[in-house]
């Protein structure tokens, strides 16, 4: 597979703030790639570098095989972008803006435009100032999904959408993936990322802390296990990879590094298992772990 986006060792400072501090990012062609990180981690800065709006201080960035700064216009012919905070012109209608963006990119698929407007329940005759945040995002989303491009860069595109529209958005992303398009999705809605993304990158303070498929990442985290046993448990605390062990009579709750799960299950079954629940790690836990590490480091 070819890479849609490759970023290596990207640095960008604004005055004394280091927004990007050696950031790496690889997005394969045809995948939906989740781009996660706490507020201020540098997600939007990275995206602006990828769009050639900001020039990196050092490091390499390639988008669709080209330099996003030098070949901005050429790269943009094959990109659609949805900003997190969509601002519209107060005296232009939503329909006018959709068509403007479409024509600037070299034309819209009219049938797809009509279909998307209907699915997103957008009134295209309203003027910019009168749209709510969610509706402004729909304007940008319709313009992006209706254009014929290879790469979609979506910066927190659903932060103002209601759950129904979120559903429509997810289906649109699936359709784009089915057509072989690449999507970089920056998001805080972890269920959305879990649902949609093939791979994710988590960044913190301007550099990448995790990157890989969700399965890979899950492997690095802990599974929660709750068990009701026939007899008293023993030997659990000596097992490697067991954390937060809580034994109350025959009830056991613990967390275990996912790659050590097997040993724990064997130990539990020795005491006889009456009931067992095991929860795989969620992205949220993964994310929180990195986030909390961050706070611990800050202390």
């Amino acid at each position: 597979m070819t890479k849609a986006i490759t970023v290596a060792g990207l640095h960008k400072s604004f005055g004394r703030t280091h927004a990007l501090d050696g950031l790496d990012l690889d997005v394969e062609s045809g995948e939906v790639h989740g781009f996660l990180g706490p507020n201020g981690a540098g997600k939007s800065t990275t995206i602006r570098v990828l769009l050639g709006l900001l020039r990196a201080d050092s490091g390499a960035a390639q988008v669709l095989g080209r330099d996003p700064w030098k070949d901005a216009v050429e790269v943009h012919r094959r990109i659609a972008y949805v900003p997190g905070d969509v601002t519209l012109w107060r005296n232009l209608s939503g329909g006018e803006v959709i068509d403007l963006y479409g024509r600037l990119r070299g034309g819209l698929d009219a049938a797809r435009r009509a279909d998307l407007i209907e699915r997103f329940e957008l009134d295209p005759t309203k003027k910019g100032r009168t749209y709510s945040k969610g509706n402004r995002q729909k304007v940008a989303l319709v313009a992006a999904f209706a254009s014929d491009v290879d790469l979609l860069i979506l910066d927190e595109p659903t932060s103002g959408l209601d759950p129904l529209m979120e559903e429509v958005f997810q289906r649109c992303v699936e359709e784009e993936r089915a057509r072989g398009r690449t999507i970089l999705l920056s998001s805080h809605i972890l269920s959305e990322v879990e649902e949609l993304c093939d791979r994710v990158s988590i960044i913190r303070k301007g550099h990448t802390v995790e990157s890989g498929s969700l399965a890979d990442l899950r492997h690095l985290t802990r599974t929660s296990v709750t068990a009701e046993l026939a007899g008293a448990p023993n030997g659990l605390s000596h097992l490697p990879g067991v954390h937060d062990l809580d034994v109350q009579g025959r009830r056991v709750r613990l967390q275990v590094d996912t790659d050590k799960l097997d040993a724990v299950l064997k130990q539990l079954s020795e005491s006889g298992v009456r009931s067992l629940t095991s929860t795989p790690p969620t992205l949220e836990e993964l994310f929180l772990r990195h986030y909390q590490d961050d706070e611990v480091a800050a202390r």
Partner: protein
Amino acid sequence: MTSLVGTRILLRFNLRRDRLMIPVWVAVNTLMVLSMPNTLKTLYGTPAERADLIHQVATNASFRALIGPVFDDSVGALTAWRVGVYAGVLAAVTSLLVVVRHTRDEEESGRQELISSGAVGRRASLTAALLAAAVANAVLALLVVAGLMGQGAVGALAFGLGLAAVGMVFATAAAIVAQLTESARLARGLTAGVLGAAFVLRAAGDSATTDGSSVWTWLSPLGWLENLRAYGGERWWVLALFAAAIALQAAVAYGLAGRRDIGMSFLPTRPGPSVGRLGTAGALAWRLQRGSVLGWSLAFFVVGVVYGGLTDGVADIVGDNESARRIFERMGGQSALTNAFLAAMVGMMGLVAALYVVGSVLRLYGEETSGRAEPVLANPVGRLRWATGHLVIAFGGSVLLMLVTGLGFVVGYGKEAGPILGACLVQLPAVWVIGGLAVLLYGVLPRAATAAWGVAGAVLLIGWVGPALAAPQAVLDLSPFGHLPKLPGGGMEWGPVLVLLALAVALVAAGLAGLRRRDLTT
């Protein structure tokens, strides 16, 4: 009064936000007024010289149209006459900017919603905005009164109060307009239009009468200021007229403000087309700026017609007066007088056109900082092409403005179409240098882009009051307008025109080169 809860906090907040803006505007205005007595003393030191000046004002309608009538030959009276209208205009502009900034601007941006959700009364924001303007005007009045004390306390008091009153008339006018329009830009434009109309009414009235008694003059708040007659037998009752107008306008504004929803206006937005025809960055730029281009063009045409119409009056009045005619014949005869008047007027319009260019160039800055430029530039639109769309409108628009001004003059004056149009067009290189500076600032130092307004303001000040202040040549030379040939009447000089053109081109090129290299501000 629960509708005023929070006013005090909001006022402090407004003044904090205006901590640079109000002091600068007030300082410029104060300096302009307070530098005048000394200048007048040097220019017209003896009573005979002053009598001569008064005679000129009495006999020259165009002089009066520009500055107004003079009521006494004291230095104080001459000061009030010479700067009154312009100080009044500056106070009005300061006030309308302050009020719109804290009312409609806040609503349009959505910031007002957050403020209003606090324990804040329905009318607190409007009150705090008007109070901020009142503070600016009060400080102006205080400084002017204190500074002119040496010319006589009574006149100083009258003049200071008059200036502040003009400011508050336009503050309350802006408060009304801000209820009517949905956009702050339109609110500012409409209020400025009212101010322009007030200036034209006063000018028309004063060209017809020598004592400000024309009905036209009385229709204009700027006319009230001159009819207050600071240092010329003060007519204090005129202050009651100001007070009544301020109270009435404030009442209307409060009435409207209490009757509408937040963010809404009495001129509501209509739905637009569901399918757009815009397809290029240039078309978008034109769509965004066409309203302002049309508004400016209309204003320039009207002003051209009005001043064109005044031109003949200059000759008539001079024709009736033997001694004045002799003075002007020495200057080169009646045609020289007409030409001098036309040249002065056209030059003034050029200075104002520079404001248009700055405003139009800074649309780029507005688009960029509001975040609207970002998605446009994420399309296959190069920065240069995006910027060029707006710059063509800025620089081409200035050509249009000077052409319609010339057309207006020709319509009003009725002759000499060629020389007048030529005189209008010859202003353009200087206009473009100011526009070029705006492009340079925007491209290279975007954070300082709005300093272009300061440059345009300084040039305006040099052009309007520099000669009257007898400012040193070095200062006058700072303005590109000072280097233009004086047309019609004077000889055409290509040298300075070409140099200014080259300078404008270089500034624009440097600005665009900077824009290409820098980060987009977000």
